[in-house]
């Protein structure tokens, strides 16, 4: 089987999407701001425990904000709340960025989109220290 190589690389011209969203400069600003702010907001949500809600899976109960485990509730889950906080805050930041003049938004460095999540990893590992401490005691 022969291999035809046309428009198959990232840098080669590609099929035009025709998508209004993909052509929108406002969506570009929203998407880039959301993706840069997202990891930062998520780490802050974890650090400051800013969960929109707490879920108790053993009894199927939701509670607004952060609610501690009580007798008979079983374990609590904050991750869903952190995620919703992150999406809401990063979304609002994206919307705010859309309102800024283009001369400002054009200065947002695009490499931050992939660099910020990499820089978030050490904090995430640190945030799980209780697990690593328990593991080291073994």
């Amino acid at each position, binding site marked *: 089987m*022969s*291999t035809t*190589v046309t428009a*198959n*690389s*990232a*840098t*080669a*011209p*590609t*099929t*035009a*999407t025709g*998508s209004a969203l*993909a052509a929108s400069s406002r*969506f*570009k600003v*929203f*998407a*880039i701001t*959301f*993706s*840069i702010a*997202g*990891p930062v907001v*998520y780490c802050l949500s*974890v650090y400051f425990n800013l969960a929109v809600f707490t879920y108790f*899976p*053993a*009894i*199927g109960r939701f509670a607004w904000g952060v609610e501690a485990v009580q007798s*008979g509730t*079983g*374990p609590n*889950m904050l*991750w*869903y709340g*952190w*995620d919703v906080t*992150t*999406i809401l805050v990063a979304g609002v930041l*994206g919307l705010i960025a859309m309102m800024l003049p283009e001369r400002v938004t054009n200065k947002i460095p*695009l*490499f931050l*989109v*992939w*660099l910020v*999540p*990499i820089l*978030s*990893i050490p904090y*995430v*590992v640190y*945030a*799980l220290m209780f*697990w*690593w401490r*328990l*593991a080291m005691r*073994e």
Partner: protein
Amino acid sequence: MTSPISTSNVFWTVWLFVHLILALGLLGALTHQAMAAAFPVRQPAGGIVTRFRAVSAPGYATAVCVLYVLVFLIGSFIYTSYRVNIRIPLEQGHYFKTGGFFDFKEHVSTLGLVLLPAYWYFWKNAQNPEYDNARKGVTLVLAVMVWFLFIVGHVLNNTRGFGA
């Protein structure tokens, strides 16, 4: 205490399978795309590695986003059962590294999720050389994340998952 998630093993096993199958699709699509972005094929060749890289990478973007969100949502749903039926026995069995890595997976999955809007935008504008480096970077980061998520999920499933 009445648990709403103490349904049958079959129920959770089916969801775990759906999660796995969609994750495999995501892994394949993203790996193809990452290889095409990192090592673009300049001229025709017949080798399997070259053909692996010689895909129409931009065409994968929407599928990757849809698959990521689906895998994320189903994983989030299964997580409720994991928290009660798997994590507690893991802690009791002193599988702390396994539990820690699952929580690591949880964080990484969110970090990957928030990358999707920019990832999608960069690929839908693949004809614009201004985005070449950012597109390559975000695709590689996302691919590494998805491989990590997949491997941790697989190891955890071997520890106490399927049919547990």
